């Protein structure tokens, strides 16, 4: 261009000063906020990554909280199981004492029974413990329902379920934080084939069953693993009319005994299993005696208590006690193995929490580093940039003053 108009002389200086001002303002904003990326348009790809990193950090924070809470729960459970192991030790000592059949008298057996019963109550308390939220520790998913109820005479019932609660400890892992009462207390192999009994839920009348005991192991072993069902017939089926029951093998329907008279509280023995029933059943009501190769810890202690309470001072009585002692020791061993297994599982889980926590610490470190690299301002570079931009602005201003002061009219 050969010519330049007067307007342009001003325009050029004006616009370059404005541009410098804008740049300086931007640098100032960066310096005062400490961030290089102020809006996504400054660096769109980085801002997406920044958002992802922020999300990841927030998740890690939450996982750490979950891990803390899980650790508390596992530690509490550990303490409770410790208590159970102590009880098992103590009862073992008492059982060995009870094995001295030659020396012990009925009175001594009574005393032993009392102490074991005390331990049984302790055990029940532990199994019904609550956690910090007021929920039952060993109820599975049914956290507001007390898991164990019952006593030595009537047997025990578990009201919880098999559920196991999990928490999320990392993006792709969950950890079980609870152990159900069924797993801990009921799932213990029993020394001998054993039974448990219950009245059917659909019963119309009212009938309940005592804890069935295997009195003739050989007979029962021959029948095992079948279950049997006691079914109450119509009163009018026999003459004179009275309540009778029929016992059948559960899976095949084969009859074991037929139309036996029902007498409340009477001790009956079927296939080597002794039990009694009380109450007023209706026609069609059933009581089931199921076979099992497991025996819960409470029942083991209850059997010992009952045997010692009811001991007879004669040869067969002593033989009975000896057998009960042997069975109890066996079952206590199994229970201890189970408890130790649970402890090691709790320990393993706590280890895994620890490892996960350490992984999160590392992840957090890397993420924060990456975030800083992307988002944070390099102060050295920014200050230098500010100095340069200020210099440019000053130069523009100075030259503006010089150039605009040149006018031919001044010299006319």
């Amino acid at each position, binding site marked *: 261009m050969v010519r330049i108009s007067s307007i342009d002389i001003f325009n050029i200086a004006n616009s370059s000063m404005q541009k410098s001002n804008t740049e300086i303002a931007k640098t100032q904003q960066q310096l005062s906020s400490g961030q290089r990326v102020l809006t996504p348009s400054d660096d769109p*790809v980085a801002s997406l990554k920044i958002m992802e990193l922020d999300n990841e950090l927030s998740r890690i924070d939450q996982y750490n909280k979950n891990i803390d809470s899980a650790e508390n729960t596992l530690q509490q459970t550990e303490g409770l199981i410790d208590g159970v192991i102590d009880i098992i030790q103590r009862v073992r000592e008492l059982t060995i004492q009870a094995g001295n059949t030659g020396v012990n008298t009925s009175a001594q057996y009574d005393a032993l029974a009392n102490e074991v019963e005390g331990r049984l109550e302790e055990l029940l308390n532990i199994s019904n413990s609550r956690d910090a939220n007021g929920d039952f520790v060993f109820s599975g998913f049914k956290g507001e329902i007390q898991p164990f109820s019952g006593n030595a005479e009537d047997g025990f019932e578990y009201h919880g379920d098999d559920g196991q609660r999990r928490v999320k400890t990392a993006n792709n892992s969950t950890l079980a934080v609870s152990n159900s009462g069924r797993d801990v207390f009921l799932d213990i192999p029993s020394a001998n084939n054993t039974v448990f009994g219950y009245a059917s839920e659909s019963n119309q009348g009212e009938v309940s069953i005592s804890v069935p005991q295997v009195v003739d192991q050989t007979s029962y072993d021959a029948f095992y693993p079948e279950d049997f069902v006691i079914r109450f017939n119509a009163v009018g089926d026999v003459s004179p009319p009275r309540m009778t029951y029929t016992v059948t093998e559960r899976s095949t329907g084969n009859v074991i005994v037929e139309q036996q008279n029902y007498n409340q509280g009477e001790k009956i023995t079927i296939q080597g299993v002794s039990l009694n029933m009380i109450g007023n059943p209706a026609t069609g009501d059933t009581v089931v005696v*199921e076979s099992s190769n*497991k025996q819960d810890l409470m029942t083991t202690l209850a059997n010992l208590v009952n045997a010692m309470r009811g001991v007879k001072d004669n040869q067969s009585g002593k033989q009975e006690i000896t057998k009960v002692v042997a069975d109890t020791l066996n079952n206590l061993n199994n229970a201890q193995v189970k408890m130790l297994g649970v402890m090691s599982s709790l320990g393993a889980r706590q280890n895994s929490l620890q490892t996960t926590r350490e992984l999160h610490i590392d992840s957090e470190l890397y993420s924060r580093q990456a975030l800083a690299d992307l988002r944070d301002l390099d102060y050295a570079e920014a200050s230098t940039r500010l100095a340069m931009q200020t210099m440019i602005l000053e130069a523009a201003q100075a030259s503006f003053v010089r150039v605009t002061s040149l006018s031919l009219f001044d010299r006319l």
Partner: protein
Amino acid sequence: MSGGDLLGISITGLNLSQSALRTAGHNIANANTEGYTRQSVLAEANPEQFLGSGFVGTGVSVSSIERQANQFVINQLRDDTALHHEQQTFLDSASQLDNLLSNPALGLSDAMQRFYAALQTGSDNPTSIAARQMVISEGQSLVDRFNSLNERLSDINSSLNQQLDGGVRDANALLESIATYNVAISRSSSTNSLPNDLYDKRDQALLELSKLVGIRVNQLSDGQVNVSLTSGDALILSGTVNKFDVVNSPDIPGNKEVAIMTNIGPKVISNKITGGDIGGILSFRGGMLDKAFNEIGRIATSLAGSFNAIHEQGLDLNGDFGNRMFSDINSEDAIRTRVLYSPENKPPFNRDMTLEIVDPSQLTGSDYRVEIEEGSQRFSIVRVSDGETVVSNLLTGRTPQNVEFDGLKMTFNGGVFQQGDKFYLQPTRGMSDALSFDLIDPEELAFAKPLIGQSELGNLGNGEISFGEVLDLTSVSGTDLPLFAMPGQIDPPMVIRFTSDNRFDVLDNSDPNNPKHLEPPIRNQLYVAGQNNDIFGTSPGELMLVAEGESLGLGSAEASATKTDNQYPAERFIFTRITDNSIGTSEQYSVVTQGGDSAAEIAAQLSSVPGVSVNAWTQARLNTISFDNYPADPMATADLPDLKLNGISLLETTVDENGTVVLANNVPSPDDQLDFQRYIAGRIDELFAGQGINASTLTESGTTFLKVVDSKGNDIELEISNAQAVVSDGVSANTLTINDTSPHTTVGGRFDITFDDGVTVKTIPTPSNLLGDVISFDPEKFNQTIDGSSYQLTYRGIQAQIKGTPQEGDGFTITFNRDAASDNRNIMSLVNLEMNATLNRGKASLSDVYGLLVEDVGIRTGSSKINASASEGVLEQSVALRNSISGVNLDEEAANLIKYEQMYSANAQAIAVARDIFERLINSV
């Protein structure tokens, strides 16, 4: 005054210098006037006269006062101005959007994080009311954030509308003034010279107009100009002015569009405007703002849809199924407001169309145009984002008619639809405004799952069952699946019973003492140890046919003297499989079974048809077994009783001291039938171990039976000698007796056929001897009748798995999860939604999609920054070029002043000399 004399010449000189001085003064005065083109005087020497001795000049005159303008440069400047304004306006609006989305107080990102954190805390403490309350509060905050983001976007939209209003008003005013200048110029152009200042003013008006819209200018011969948009639509044409107007958008309510007023009414030209502020606004709105609305709506839709689906399948603290967590994405209101009817559609106005969202993961976020074509009964649906036609179908005219595409279902519900009708579909835009959090009570949060699988206490093996999943609560046709139809219970509770170590049945456990088969049955299922075995079918359209033909089992079999087969007749099975639902094409497969084929063989043949699988098993029962004459006296080997199964003897023998073959000592007498049957059952289990055959005894109605089951469906061949027995098949009432006269019989098996969705069967003959008679439709059993045969849906909507090594007799129950306050499985599913890819056909999570939106806005804002600054640079250059040609340089004008002043002085001096000469001449006479 012309003339050859000095005076006259000097006067012309004076005139010239006066004009020039005046022009220079005009230039100086207008040095800073916008759009001013400097003028310069063009002088021309006057024509010369011939005065005998030669040609003599006659002075100078002003030929013209010229405007120093280059039309090419002016046009270039106008175009560059339009471009820069467009990009600058685009940048201004884009920056607003950019800041909005990334602002932590307004953006979605950290609100979503807080909501997920609350969910995780809730899943750690499902019984804690405080933790539940937190979930509700954060959920409400998240919804508020969506709503307020939507409001801010709407605010941006309103301000754009206002800018459009203002811009159109200014543009119209400019058009008016350009037209006025046109007229004035054409009048003044009758002379040879041009009205410079009018031209300047008109050029300035055109420049101002190009700041608003991009235009093309055509010069006419009479000095007027025609102005049109870059697309060609005329604004000023031969004196007619077509003004702009702002009208409501026929597509998107709340948007305004720019139209030109033609003589047939307003014509919307928004999509044809490029350049200028208005072009920038429209390009931003269509390219970024509308897309932001739709994307945010899409995120809201997926959030509500996926959370609601999982929440409604869970149980709350009261044991009820969860209600919706967020608003219903397919509420009666929402499905109608998504469809917009064009104002041009003709009466009657009783059309009813709905648009439902059936699969949020397939949503594209685009709007759609629907048109019923003129001259045919076809309608087409075009996706706006890429212009692709997604549907082109025949309009049947019978309502309701629906069509599915891109995760949506559009239904013509009722009313009169005509050719030429147009509709606009907005699937996602309204959702972020309509989103609401619908739970208030902390107890209403459904953290638990409705079912729980548990193993029975008496199990001997070590199989484990998973806790169980709910997949669906409604069937394919939208009706409730019966399993959870009644609140608070599962109907029926089920038990999985292992009939052998690797086969199981799933039974109805409503009466635990009397479990029975389900409808339709799940029986004789194969279990594989060492892997997770699914218990239930997961295909919602799968059907089952239970074969109940007369020939099955003992139906046609007889006791005979020689070895016989199961007497099943040959049959032809014709399977039809639908391959394309919309057109109705299908394939056919034909299978012919031979007479005497076992159930296993039939099963194998039928299972070879794609989409068909058959499960077969055989049951035979023996009762009242008695020996003819044993022990006889004397004993002869020929009198030995025997019972053979599949050709193998079941009674153990030994040789006595006489060398006669007799029964072994451990073989009980059939007088004690139960004992004897137990012995036989034990022998069968021993001899046929591993072949899938097992035996047991059972008592029914006072009779004891020996039950033999072949779990593969092979025939059971029985042969008896020196004895007799009654044979039945355990299902039908048929019996026969095998004895010495007719010792052989073969019992055939039964089968269940499972069909994939779309497969059905016919048989020849009909009714089939194997499949049975036609059963009439019974809605109680959720059957379907297709071509006269009654099929049952197998889908129950749940799933559970068993792994490990269970033993025969083991059982696993599936029951309703009552009182499960500590169950956190359902809220864990909600927590997992954060990382799940619920959008973009399973490729992106909610956070991903939001991040992509922010990134997209950021990229486009960033590139528009570059564009704006580039176009600014170009504009500056154009301005400088124009100014260098047309701009006033004060120094130059100052120099001109001096020049012409001197000229004036010189001419004045020449006049003085002329006067002198004259005086001297006069005075000398």
